[in-house]
């Protein structure tokens, strides 16, 4: 089994890894915002419902959620199951939206009331207050916890293999069975480290860009 062939195979698995990563972010980042608004809503039942939902999602393992999304609809209602990759994506988007929503919520709630009031007495509209005064301060506050969560997501993608989505670790593990070699598994670590390294640089850059002011 040549190095080139193994690299090629792992790269294919890594593409799936990256696909899960990107799709999850693209959907979970905005969905999390909607969820966070729900959990801060003045409508009590909505707030209660949203917070319960977030509590359940954050309080149970992602791997369980993946399994349930894949097998649940078929076994409970007799539907045709989602394709494997879709099932993973659905579970990941919901799970990460719940985590992100809590980060957004604590970010928004940490902005002192005086910021809103100062903007109000200066005659700003609600939209102006949010977009011109509050938003950037929230972004600055949530970059570090979001960075943590997003790095965790990179590694969580490996859970997809529980329903046989061929991400990089699954590809590497197959070499143990087919060729009795373990080094491809170590090799996957290189992919993760590189990817997380790049992300870390990106987040450091973002933090530096926002360091011109203090909140």
């Amino acid at each position, binding site marked *: 089994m040549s190095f080139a062939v193994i690299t090629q195979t792992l790269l294919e698995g890594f593409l799936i890894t990256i696909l899960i990563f990107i799709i999850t972010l693209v959907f979970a980042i905005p969905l999390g915002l909607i969820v966070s608004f729900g959990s801060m809503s003045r409508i009590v039942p909505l707030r209660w419902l949203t917070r319960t939902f977030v509590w359940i999602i954050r309080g149970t393992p992602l791997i369980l959620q993946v399994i349930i999304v894949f097998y649940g609809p078929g076994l409970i209602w007799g539907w045709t199951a989602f394709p494997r990759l879709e099932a993973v994506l659905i579970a990941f988007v919901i799970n990460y939206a719940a985590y992100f929503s809590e980060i957004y919520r604590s970010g928004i709630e940490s902005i*002192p009331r*005086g*910021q809103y*009031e*100062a*903007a*109000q*007495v*200066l*005659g*700003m*509209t*609600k939209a*102006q207050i949010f977009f*011109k*005064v509050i938003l*950037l*301060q929230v972004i*600055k506050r949530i970059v570090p916890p979001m960075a943590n969560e997003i790095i965790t997501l990179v590694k969580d993608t490996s859970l997809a293999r529980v329903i046989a989505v061929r991400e990089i670790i699954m590809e590497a593990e197959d070499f143990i069975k087919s060729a009795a070699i373990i080094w491809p598994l170590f090799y996957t670590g290189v992919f993760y480290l590189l990817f997380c390294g790049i992300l870390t640089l990106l987040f450091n850059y973002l933090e530096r860009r926002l360091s*011109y*002011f*203090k*909140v």
Partner: protein
Amino acid sequence: MSILEVKNLKKSFGLSIVLENISFSLDKGESLAIIGSSGSGKTTLLRCLNFLEIPDAGTINVGSETIFDGNNPATLPDKEIRKRRLHFGLVFQSFNLFPQYTALKNITLACELLAKERSDYKENRKSIIADIEKKARTLMDQVGLSGKLDFYPHQLSGGQQQRVAIARALALNPDILCFDEPTSALDPELTGEVLKVIKSLADKRMTMVIVTHEMQFAREVSDKVLFIDNGIIVEYGTPEEIFVNPREERTKQFLERYSG
């Protein structure tokens, strides 16, 4: 002619009555000092004037316009509240500058946003923006900070931040500028520079309502003094009447404690 007239203002939070029967008036160019012990309702009164709280009863008139009428408490649309509150400016105890903007931008931001509502904004955008900035520079000069235009709030001392906050409030040309203990959050050596700016505004006959614990300053700067205790006006008069010849026992006790 009085520019501000407050009549029988009342405000409670739940069951506790925080302000009751508050009535006073203020002529254009006068400064009113509001004194009183902690929890007496001074901040709540300023917040009512600025529509940060809605009073339960009473009226507030600015000039000939009734901006709040407790007998007819129709819930106003947001736009109308924004318009009415612009009669007032408010300087907070904790400055509340916007941290992501420079001192200059803190001053111009609200003016620029308001200018967008002008019908001639599109045609004259450049000159409108230029005017706003010019005015902001003048104000920064007035508060003695012409060298700090591009500083961010965290790069300024508390006293400097508060002076920017005063300039920010002035930029919208309020009829009445309110201060809520503008020096309480400052180190003692920084209060002087802020009081000096407020004094200079009084000398220019800016109409002001100043909540303060600085009795000496209140006496120097104000035309009228209002002593409030437990949400009720105990005594209202000229600085001489209140500070030199207080009639009420409660006023005397309060002044004794504070001149301490």
